[in-house]
């Protein structure tokens, strides 16, 4: 294959990736072709002579692969953020540079194509494809098989505005409705006791709350204002899990 065709293949793949973007495994195959083409350009630019097929394929693949970090580091040094279009453009520029060097070197005589290369390629590609099919099927089957149940849990967290509590809360005389988030995962539905305490005393009798299996629910819990303006510990618990914050009432301490 001529250097111009390799260059065209590289540019076409990087162009396609830049235009279409991601979405599935086919772009991965396109990128593989692009990197192999880029690797071949590296070899034509730096090693302008016949290389044994296995070594050529390996060196080409390695050179193509290291082009990714090379372009990424270059973009970083230029202050360009690493996004798909910028990466594709960087790879295309590298391909053009390498293609140019290779074409210049070939003016003193092109390196003849090695006929063994085309025969060796299937020796690598066929086992890779078979391995991907067999290994991929085994892996997907394993992932989809039932696995032992992981330990479940019930969590309680401050929700809504309360999730932002970062210091003592000043309570109005009427108290506050504090949103909490109760989540259950991997546990059966259960009834837990919701308790609120202000200072060292319960603020109200415990009331039952149903915690359904594998659900997230938001509950507004009314917390009465602390009796004084001194710092009070406020705890809202659902079963064994609780949230704790601190607050002051409207009266003087």
């Amino acid at each position, binding site marked *: 294959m001529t250097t111009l065709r390799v260059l065209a293949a590289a540019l076409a793949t990087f162009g396609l*990736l830049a235009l279409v973007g*991601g979405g599935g495994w086919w*772009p*991965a195959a396109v*990128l593989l072709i692009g990197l192999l083409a880029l690797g071949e350009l590296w070899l034509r630019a*730096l*090693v302008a002579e*016949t*290389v*044994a097929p*296995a070594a050529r394929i*390996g*060196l080409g693949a*390695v050179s193509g*692969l*290291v082009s*990714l*970090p*090379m372009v*990424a*580091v270059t973009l970083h040094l230029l202050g360009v*953020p*690493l*996004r*798909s279009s910028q*990466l594709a453009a960087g790879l295309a520029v590298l391909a053009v540079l390498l293609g140019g060097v290779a074409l210049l070197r070939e003016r003193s005589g092109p390196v003849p194509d090695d006929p063994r290369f085309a025969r060796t390629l299937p*020796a*690598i590609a066929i086992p*890779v494809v078979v*391995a991907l099919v*067999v*290994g991929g099927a*085994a*892996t997907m089957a*394993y992932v989809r098989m039932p696995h*032992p149940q*992981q*330990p479940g*849990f*019930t*969590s*309680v*967290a*401050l929700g809504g505005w309360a999730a932002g*509590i*970062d210091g*003592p809360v000043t309570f109005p005389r009427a108290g506050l409705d504090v949103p909490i988030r109760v989540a259950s995962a991997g546990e059966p539905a259960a009834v837990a006791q919701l308790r609120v305490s202000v200072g*060292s*005393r319960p603020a109200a009798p415990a009331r039952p709350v149903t915690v359904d299996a594998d659900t997230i629910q938001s509950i507004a819990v009314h917390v009465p204002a602390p009796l004084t303006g*001194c*710092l*009070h*510990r406020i*705890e809202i618990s659902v079963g064994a*899990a*609780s*949230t*704790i*914050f*601190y607050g002051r009432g409207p009266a003087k301490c």
Partner: protein
Amino acid sequence: MTLTAPAAVLPETAEPAPGRDHSAVWCAVSLTVAGAAGAVALVAADRAAEWGHGRPFELFWLGMLVFTLPAAYWAGRRATSSRLRLAVIVAYACFTYLPKLLRNPTGPLYHDEFAHWRQSREILLDGRLFEANPIVRVVGDFPGLHSAVASVASLTGISVWHAALAVLIGAHLLLVLGVTVLAQEIWRDGRTAAIAALAYGLNSSFLFFDTQFGYESLAIALWVWTLVALVRAMRAPAKAPIAVLLIAATVVTHHLTALGLIATMLIIAVAATIKRRDAVAATAWLLTLTAAVLTTSWLLWVAPKTAGYLDPYLAKALNQFAGMFSDNGESGRTLFKQSIAPWWEQKTAFVAQGCALAAMTAAAVHLYRTRNRDPLALAMLVLGVCYFPAVLLILTPSGAEGARRSWAFSYLGIALVVAPLAVRLLDRWAGKAAAALLTVFAIVMVGNTAAGMNPSYRFPGPPVYGSDTRALIPEVAAAADWLRATQGRGLRIVADRYSGLIFGSFGGQDPVTGSVTFPTYDVYLTQPGQPVNPALIGQLSAWRFGYLVVDRRMAREVPEIGIYFENNEPIAHNGRPGFTLGQLTKFDHTPWTIKIYDSGNIAIYRFDFASLNVPAIGGGK
């Protein structure tokens, strides 16, 4: 001597005429069937392990050997054509990635995998390289792997984990192919090259360590291909630029591999100088110098933290090694202590080292008798000999990590000098030698793998607190998700090692897990009712740490790997938990810690340093 051999490739093994020999078809069919059977056995092994019944170890090795032994047969068979042999080696490379793929097919699991996953994900989110990594602090300074993974993910739209798998499977394949090509360059024989690749695959890092989402996995492939490029450049200096490209890529990817590359190139350069003082040696020295300059420059100007990161391991390992002689081995470690590996795996781990020693001795005699004067053969012999001192370092707790890492380098030397001896034996006593070599192959593969990786790294199983691979439970992941969803990412948090791993990766936070200079574990260790060290509080406040994660399992369980926070933590490990429940629940009564999340085992507190020392009704100070 091979360095003076013509650069043109030697003729391939004579291809049989079509229609007369169906060995390629037989080989393809047998290896496909064996590969499928092996994959089924590997899946069965993992299922037996995760459900806690059956025989996972036996099934695992059945799966491995049912493919690798026929593959070794086909690769070492004299009549196998060169292309068929190459296909077998490629299939071997692909199959040997399967155990790791099955171990964690859907996401990171090993400690360093979380660091690289996070680093790649951050690049996708922010588009920047060289960001600090809170899990492995030098990872960000070596962007080779994660920039490649992030680029693949960005260009194709696949997930970070899938992009990582694509890069890592490619690197594993290139590693095996690279060893084959390197052996071919040195010995000029496809059969020897194939056997060298198979032998290299016996090293203890091959199946599970150098296949993980870690910078070594890519760097080791770059290391081998750099040596290929070096050998080619020594033969024809005009080919040196490709070697420089690969040296640079190795330096950018992994610190230890870059140092290993310099050491390997140095051995080759010295060997070339001893054997001949001409352009060959000069090229080797020039490229070694290039590697040294690039590595030094990178470590000085781009990754200056690396020396401080590596130093303690080396110094501690040497101290422990010296201490073993003065305290009758008490400071050393006992191999397979409390291991659940079956006795036969443990025994073969020792037998494998004996096999390596015997094989190296025989290979050295073989090289001497055949009057081989190739500097590369001599260099590989020296590299292989380096394997044995590292075996001693495995007896020290801190040296074990380094020793394991070094085997991937030194085993290349063993593989390359033992391969011609194996071919010689096969030529002389075909049947008996094949049976004996396949037996040794199986024993060494079992033994080295057992020596290199704990069963918890190799097999799934029930959650185990304080295990690097089994500590992750949905409860921790859910807490990390909640914190990121409600409070954002990039928060500075105080955590233990295992929570920090998950909050730092999936949670996208910046956890600190304590050190001698920043002993955040003192926050947990402080007794209830006692004030936390004011200097530490001052540090936390000044550095804007906002959250504290408490895993109450620390008061109930002993970590499997004997670490709660970091290696030098001042916590007694005497078989009992290092904390009382009171030490961990004291934060429920201190006004400067607001409990914003609780799921039983995991609690998240927000620091409110302004309320420090303020008494609260119903709480403490």
